[in-house]
């Protein structure tokens, strides 16, 4: 694969699946600077993964897998490494917030996901995006029964908190 082909495919993926990447970024970060950093890291790993992509998997699943893996391991990165990657962006944030306000229910949902542990966050994202237990198990590499137990807890937790959120009149 030539560098131009790699770049072309990467640009296509990024254009088509950016929402998916943003979701992972928002689920794993709280600060804008961290979002920018994680977004950069995911983009870099995604670009690197292009030559390894085989059409056996759906592109969205492939991107999800890479984004989740990067986000999970990124969390523990050292500060100096983050500083280094920020330097590459030369102080200009890559991600800009849109003008329109975000739905507060969605903002609440992200806050709840951010409170979960690293693995549960990825499961919550996949669950909300309609992935089956089997697909989640394959993507993460854990058993379906393990997925089932975790999903049961995630659903219970989210519905309980959502009820409280609704009661508070927001």
């Amino acid at each position, binding site marked *: 694969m030539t560098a131009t082909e790699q770049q072309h495919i990467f640009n296509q993926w990024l254009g088509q699946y*950016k929402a998916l990447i943003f979701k992972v970024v928002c689920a794993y970060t709280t600060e804008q600077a961290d979002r920018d950093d994680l977004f950069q890291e995911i983009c870099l790993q995604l670009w690197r993964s292009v030559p390894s992509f085989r059409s056996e998997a759906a592109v969205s699943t492939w991107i999800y897998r890479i984004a989740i893996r990067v986000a*999970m*391991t990124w969390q523990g990165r050292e500060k100096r490494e983050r500083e280094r*990657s920020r330097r590459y962006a030369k102080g200009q944030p890559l991600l800009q917030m849109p003008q329109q306000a975000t739905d507060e229910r*969605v903002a609440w*949902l992200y806050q709840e996901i951010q409170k979960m542990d690293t693995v549960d966050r990825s499961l919550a994202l996949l669950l*909300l995006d309609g992935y089956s237990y089997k697909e989640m198990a394959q993507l993460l590499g854990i058993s379906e029964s393990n997925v089932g137990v975790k999903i049961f807890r995630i659903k219970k937790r989210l519905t309980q908190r*959502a009820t409280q959120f609704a009661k508070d009149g927001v």
Partner: protein
Amino acid sequence: MEFEDIQKVWSEEKNQVMYVFDQEAINRMISRRARSVRRIANINEWGLMIVAGLTSVSLLIIGSDGAYKIVAALTMLATGIYVWWQRRQRLSGLQKVASSVREELEEGIANARYMVRFSQTFAYWFLLPAAGIALFRMSQKETSLVKWLFILGCFVFSHLLVQLELRWKHRPRLRRLEELREKFELS
């Protein structure tokens, strides 16, 4: 509120643009970072191989007596070969495709363990033999105290550097990855 209602809220979000970004800036960043990582790895590996090879050849050409120069040259050559083998492993690792996040995590753990072991044993497979040869050689000749201190200091300094890296980089990384694996296993 039911879970289906939450999912509905989430699905509506799909149609909203959360962020905007400059595609050109992303491409520039990727190109810069990829080049930088490749350059650093190449400089380190080729640098070590060239230094080891040149030292080995120089020792054979200008070394003083037979036994010493052959042992020292072979040690340096072995170091060069070891770096070359490491480079091959690294490059072939780049081609591997893991089928799940967990599999990639296992690979990460294996790499981190390797680095921990590498640093832990560095003194045994490199520092002690190299120091042994150098110090033995120095003891055979009249060597000034300053030179003794300098050579010993170099070995101690190398050992400390590797230990620092082990303590602040490799061990914490391994611990983080193993903790993450535990989270996968917990149900």
